[in-house]
């Protein structure tokens, strides 16, 4: 593809744009992954888990510690990161989740805000980020690279994007073809009716928490690598990008969420080499979310009910 040298896109040479496209798609994959995790949990439990990023960041920190300060095999550290995500989410879902069951989605979300702050506090307290000290967590797959259309691609980036696709397809199939998936879809429609019809609500919800927690741990691991530095505050607030993806999917459609996640990652990265807008590229998830929310609200409906305080 060397014939493309000299080809420029809006004034930036293709050669300079290439690495950003690769990075963008990889990050997009991780956002898509998280977005799907958010949507699955929201549909089954009505909880929009703001702590998604914080849980992933904490898992990645634990993996970092195990890799650098113990002689444990690395794969075990990575596995523990993923399991940690599942465990924390499951614990929250089983212990605190039921207390919020009857509250409206806003209150449920604010509850996870509490979880996010607790984790953020734990991380800032036990592993403070200081000055020039930067933690780096590099997955073994990152060291294996190949060339694609003249761009250098590493295997972590490939895994990120492919995993997003596989997970979306897998989850869609799971929701459609398994009895647990059907139960989750039933909960999404109406909790109380499902409970009366004999759906074991608590158990199905616990599974949703566990599943989305595992995704959360995996996404944390991937993002810690893709971002090149393990900054837990930054990783915690990457939940914004995943939220944007979930909102583009109207908190319903897994495939649209996936596409949204990839779009968020892609645009954010691809704007980097453009000097005029480079500083504003981090606004991408915010702008896309706002557009998605405004689209969601295009119809105004008056519902007659007392607001739940």
């Amino acid at each position, binding site marked *: 593809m060397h014939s493309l040298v000299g080809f420029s896109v809006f004034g930036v040479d293709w050669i300079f744009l290439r690495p950003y496209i690769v990075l963008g798609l990889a990050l997009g994959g991780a956002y898509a992954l998280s977005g799907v995790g958010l949507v699955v949990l929201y549909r089954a439990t009505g909880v929009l888990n703001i702590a998604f990023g914080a849980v992933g960041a904490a898992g990645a920190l634990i993996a970092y510690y195990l890799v650098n300060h113990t002689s444990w095999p690395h794969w075990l550290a990575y596995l523990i990161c993923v399991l940690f995500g599942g465990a924390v989410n499951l614990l929250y879902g089983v212990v605190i989740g039921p207390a919020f069951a009857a509250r409206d989605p806003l209150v449920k979300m604010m509850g996870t805000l509490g979880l996010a702050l607790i984790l953020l506090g734990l991380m800032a307290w036990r592993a403070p980020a200081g000055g020039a000290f930067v933690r780096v967590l590099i997955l073994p797959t990152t060291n294996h690279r190949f060339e694609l259309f003249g761009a250098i691609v590493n295997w972590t980036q490939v895994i990120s994007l492919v995993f997003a696709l596989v997970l979306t397809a897998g989850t869609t199939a799971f929701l459609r073809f398994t009895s647990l998936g059907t139960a989750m879809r039933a909960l999404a429609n109406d909790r109380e009716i499902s409970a009366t019809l004999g759906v074991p609500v608590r158990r199905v919800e616990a599974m949703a928490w566990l599943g989305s927690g595992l995704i959360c741990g995996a996404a944390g691991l991937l993002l810690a690598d893709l971002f090149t530095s393990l900054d837990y505050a930054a990783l915690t607030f990457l939940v914004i990008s995943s939220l944007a993806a979930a909102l583009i999917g109207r908190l319903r459609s897994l495939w649209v969420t996936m596409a949204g996640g990839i779009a968020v990652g892609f645009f954010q990265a691809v704007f980097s080499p453009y000097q005029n807008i480079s500083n504003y590229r981090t606004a991408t998830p915010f702008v896309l979310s706002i557009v998605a929310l405004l689209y969601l609200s295009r119809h105004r409906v*008056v519902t*007659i*009910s*007392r607001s739940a305080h």
Partner: protein
Amino acid sequence: MIEVESLTVRFAGVIPLDDVSVSFPGGTCGLIGPNGAGKTTFFNVLSGFVRPAAGSISAFGENLLKLADYRRARWGLRRTFQTEMAIEKLSVFDNVAMIHEHSGAKRGSRRADVLAAIDFVGLEASPKSKVGGLPARDRRLVEIARAVVGAPRVVLLDEPAAGLPDEETGLLSEVIQKIPDRFGALVILVDHDMTLVSACCQTTAVLDFGKLIASGPTAEVLRNEHVMRAYLGTEEEL
């Protein structure tokens, strides 16, 4: 006098009100029908929450459908809801005063008007007490006081006695009967309690599946064969 001409409401696939023409002459008028007959939808059209597909409503010569929803209160439309809507965090006085504030009534007479309305419904609790701390009957009375303050012209009561035991409905019934004479307002009462409807309403209209099936003097309407069949089940006695 409210005149409704061929009022039709359509939601996707459902027709809660189908070509309804009816007039409410004055005093206290009943509006009854089985669940899902369209009574609350009719109130929602009057309130402006639901836009009808066709038809017109003229209330005392005013084309009600032309007014913006929140302006109808200023015109003199008041309503209560099936669920309690008195504001728990505010005192009884503030609850009633806030209706007065948006009714266009004179500010100078606010205190007197509000206290008069509270007195009218016979509420014994202090006007300063928080509504959240009152028993169910008193909270319903506060809602009636809210509905009659500040020169009302039309008062819509949607199951005002819902959730109250029979002995407490009696007082409510007396209060409702006094509204037209005292305030000169037309009252429309939706309720399932036939004792309450018979006691309060001179005329009554009956809806079933979105269609008007009878209207006229209450006693006659309740004896009407179609009404008995539609509303009370085929052979059952009152």
